[in-house]
């Protein structure tokens, strides 16, 4: 590509840009664009923060009673499978 990127082009490449999966030539064009375009810079920055804030959330422990019921169901299943004989 020799033409300049539009904001629309930038937006279409945003995910790959944030994931670092676009090729170096495109990457440098995208970098040039955000350095010159305040809107796209803000969109890029806030998209990145959106992803980071979700990635920062650890799964909460499962409530004990849910865990107990899960293990109970699995043990029942295992007993059925290993016992072989079903009534």
């Amino acid at each position, binding site marked *: 590509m020799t033409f300049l990127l539009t904001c629309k082009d930038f937006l279409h490449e*945003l995910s790959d840009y*944030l994931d670092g999966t676009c090729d170096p030539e495109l990457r440098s064009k995208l970098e040039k664009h955000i350095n010159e375009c*305040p*809107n796209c810079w803000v969109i890029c920055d806030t998209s990145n923060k959106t992803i980071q804030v979700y990635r920062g959330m650890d799964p909460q422990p499962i409530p004990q009673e849910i865990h107990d019921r899960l293990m109970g*169901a*699995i043990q029942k299943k295992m007993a059925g499978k290993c016992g072989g004989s079903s009534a």
Partner: protein
Amino acid sequence: MDAAETSLPMDDVALVERARQGDAASFSELVSRYDRKIYRLARHITNSDEDAEDVLQEAFLKAYEHLDGFQGNAKFYTWLVRIAVNESLMKLRKRKSDRTVSLDEPAENGDEPMVREIAVWDGNPEQQYSSDELRAILDKAIANLKPAFRTVFLLRDVEELSTEETAAALDLSVPAVKSRLLRARLELRERLTRIFKKKGDDVFAYL
């Protein structure tokens, strides 16, 4: 092949192999590795604690039942996620009696990504909100996405599966995963920006 003992923590492949041979403790170890993540995923897709618990049980029971059919070249976790996603979508369809709940019909209105709010965030939300408040904000934003977008975002950016793993887990093409991910990220960005932006601040400050 001999089942040589190693002192390293066992990887999923070894645990699956042992569970397959009837070792209950190995399967329990797999459960405790992934139960939180599967429960969280199911809760996010179904938006229901009750359905999420059902999905959690069904996913692990099905995994156990079909261990013999599990192909060792796939990741156990990806396989489990695939089962949990399918169970979750079934719940969603049943509960809403909504035939539009489908991964095949993203109901895209044009493929132009949407951007309206252009404003920087006011500091770091992780420091400005308690973790319960922040969790509630993030969960609500996800809940508002359509299932086809929500599911892709959850697998890629919450469970941190690769694009290829997500495509495999959802039976989607890589380009479909990418375009849905972009849409989902931009929609969430939009919603979060409305909440986290500096008050009285907008694009004009940057022009």
